[in-house]
């Protein structure tokens, strides 16, 4: 049996090296501007959270092993090695102190995609055994049980019963040959079952055939977060196998940020081939239905509301305009935050940070960024499209005693469906 060792970690770093990363490291002039884009720096004032600083171990591998001059320096004994001590010291920066939100990648004047580099660097950390316990445990549960939160199908089945009872609609499971296979995140199953209900109601109105899959209902991917492509591949593969077995045309990524990144953008590369189906985010699907006139709503929300852009869906997913169109469909008083769309600020719990118990205090501290954004707007309701953001924001609002309800956009749309018996 293999084991996590420094040597494996170094190999993983080496394996991750490619032209983009080499060009990024070559270009960095340590101007420090990425710090100002990172909420871990802006909210703590601690320079160690400067995004590019989080990459020091990876940078050393690049310099010492992938540059001529770095090799010469190593031969001359002028280089500091990457050792266990270094990785241990940097582990909290790479995991607790980064949500992979990618805001830094938007401001770097030389164009470094720092969050991409950190995603790659995590491969080395996890291979060397340096990853937070919370994320390790989530990964173990995801692989062995099928969900990072330990949700098994019977638990989902129970929720399905509740939703069916609530809505009077059938939630299809393991139906072959339908157009859409929906995925859920554990959080939606356990904390926000209203999402499932919303899907059922919307799809009924627009007449979409869909199903859940008992063997691959979990959309989240702990492997992406901990930074192990091997684990991520195993998790993605379950969905691919299921979707191809059920012969669906589309797989719907739920209101969960990193799930979208995992299944939409990383998945095909993890399994090494394109899919036989398309992946759409639920908001993409809804917007398509709206613009084609199939999705009809009535009435408007009176509340003053704003939208929190989930990093992985908006900035790193490319679903920017869809949520705006959908919101304008049902909201009369929608206001944008100061920094929005691709320049939004992270909730502080993305990239697996929400799974790290020891990072809780830090996470709440950096939430102040979102808090002050909300305070500027004085809104009644916050809408978002990521179950993880939703949970983190709810925790943060509770911590700072702010009473702003947080709702999922899909549910809000469902509340306004025309001809739905639930609507008065």
């Amino acid at each position, binding site marked *: 049996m293999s084991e996590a060792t420094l040597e494996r970690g170094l190999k993983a770093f080496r394996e991750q090296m490619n032209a983009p990363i080499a060009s990024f490291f070559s270009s960095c002039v340590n101007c420090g501007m990425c710090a100002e884009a990172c909420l871990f720096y802006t909210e703590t004032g601690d320079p160690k959270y400067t995004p590019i600083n989080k990459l020091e171990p990876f940078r050393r591998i690049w310099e010492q092993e992938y540059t001529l001059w770095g090799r010469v320096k190593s031969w001359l004994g002028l280089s500091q090695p990457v050792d266990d001590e270094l990785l241990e010291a940097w582990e909290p920066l790479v995991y607790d102190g980064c949500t992979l939100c990618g805001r830094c990648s938007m401001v770097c004047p030389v164009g470094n995609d720092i969050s991409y580099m950190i995603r790659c660097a995590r491969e080395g950390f996890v291979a*060397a055994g340096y990853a937070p316990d919370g994320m390790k445990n989530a990964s173990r549960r995801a692989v062995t049980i099928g969900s990072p939160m330990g949700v098994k199908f019977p638990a989902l089945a129970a929720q399905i019963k509740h939703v069916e009872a609530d809505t009077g609609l059938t939630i299809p499971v393991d139906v072959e040959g339908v157009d859409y296979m929906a995925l859920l995140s554990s959080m939606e199953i356990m904390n926000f079952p209203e999402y499932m209900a919303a899907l059922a109601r919307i799809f009924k109105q627009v007449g979409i055939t869909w199903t859940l899959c008992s063997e691959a209902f979990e959309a989240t991917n702990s492997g992406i977060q901990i930074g192990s492509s091997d684990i991520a591949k195993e998790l993605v593969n379950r969905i691919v196998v299921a979707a191809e077995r059920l012969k669906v045309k589309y797989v719907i990524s739920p209101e969960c940020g990193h799930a979208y990144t995992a299944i939409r953008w990383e998945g095909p590369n993890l399994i090494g081939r394109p899919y036989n189906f398309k992946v759409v985010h639920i908001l993409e699907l809804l917007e398509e239905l709206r613009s084609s006139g199939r999705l009809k709503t009535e009435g408007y929300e009176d509340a003053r509301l704003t939208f929190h852009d989930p990093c992985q869906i908006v900035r790193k997913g490319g679903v920017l305009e869809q949520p705006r169109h959908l919101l304008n469909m049902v909201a009369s008083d929608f206001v944008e935050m100061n920094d929005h769309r691709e320049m939004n600020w992270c909730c502080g719990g993305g990239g697996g940070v929400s799974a790290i118990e020891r990072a809780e205090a830090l996470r709440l501290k950096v939430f102040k960024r979102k808090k002050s954004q909300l305070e500027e707007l004085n809104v009644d309701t916050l809408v978002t499209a990521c179950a993880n953001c939703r949970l983190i924001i709810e925790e943060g609002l509770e911590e700072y005693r702010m009473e702003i309800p947080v709702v999922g956009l899909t549910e809000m749309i469902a509340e306004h469906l025309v001809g739905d018996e639930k609507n008065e």
Partner: protein
Amino acid sequence: MAETGKGMGKTLAQSLRESGVSRRGFLKFCTATASMMALPPSMAPAIAQALGKAKRPSVIWLSFQECTGCTESLTRSHSPTVENLIFDYISLDYHHTLQVAAGEGAEAAREAAMRENKGQYIVVVDGSIPLGNPGYSAIAGISNLQMLEETVAGAAAVVAVGTCAAFGGLPHAKPNPTGAVSVSEIVKDKPVVNVSGCPPIPTVITGVLAHFLTFGSLPELDALGRPMAFFGKSIHDRCYRRPFYDKGLYAETFDDEGARKGWCLYRLGCKGPMAYNACATAKWNRGTSWPVESGHGCLGCSEPDFWDAGGFYNALSIPDSDITRQAVYVAGAGVALGAVAGAVNRSKQARAREEHEPVTIDDLDKRP
């Protein structure tokens, strides 16, 4: 210094007065002398006072590896002027181009002057000294080196006139077949004044001699041993075309509009910025003009190694070698080496991928 010596009898002021020159005329002479020495007009009274006491010094002029251009500069361009007046009041006791005496008589005159004015006389040298074969240049069977050494032994000071004497000049240019050196490389124990230029400006030569005659001392010198009064500023600093340089107006060829309008000649290879001389103010041919005014860039003739300092028509900022061709070869080598470096990187990356061992949930923990 330069108090009395035999044969130096009267002071300059006395001589002038005896030849019927009024005090007013003497003051005019002093004014002209100050102007010639590039001293401020306010120095004229001090010059008058000093000249009132000055005695006629003996000058021995030695010519070595030279073209006689320096002597030409000094003499040919002159009808009697204030410089000549000065020369009337020094005693040019040996100058083998100018003197009437020849052969042994000439050498005897030199030896007599050296004997009679021991420790007082000035040696003017034009031309460089060959250190290769002594036979390369000799006078009356005496090698240049030997003549210089024995003449300088009793001198008060040495004036190296012209770039050959000052810095080696043309004979010193690569490949320097005669092993030519400058005066200052041989004379270490006497003050040496370098009046460089190819040729030097005549008033600068006489200005230095006038300074010695007037004040009995040598003028203030720059790091290359040249009188500050004349060589303290570069051609560029005193050039009337400098405003065009500042404005970025340059002649591109010798016959374009810029050239006709008198714009800066930097791009045509003017060495003004690195050449220190008084051409811009003293001018040539009795104040008629000077190279830049005539539309040609400065060659930098008053500087060491000016023959080897790149082409006369290359801008000062450009290197000497054929960089373009060199750059092509070098780029070829760079691509080849870069390809090798890239291949090494590539193989490292490939090996790491080959050796990849999948991370499973069982080995998430580091086991000591």
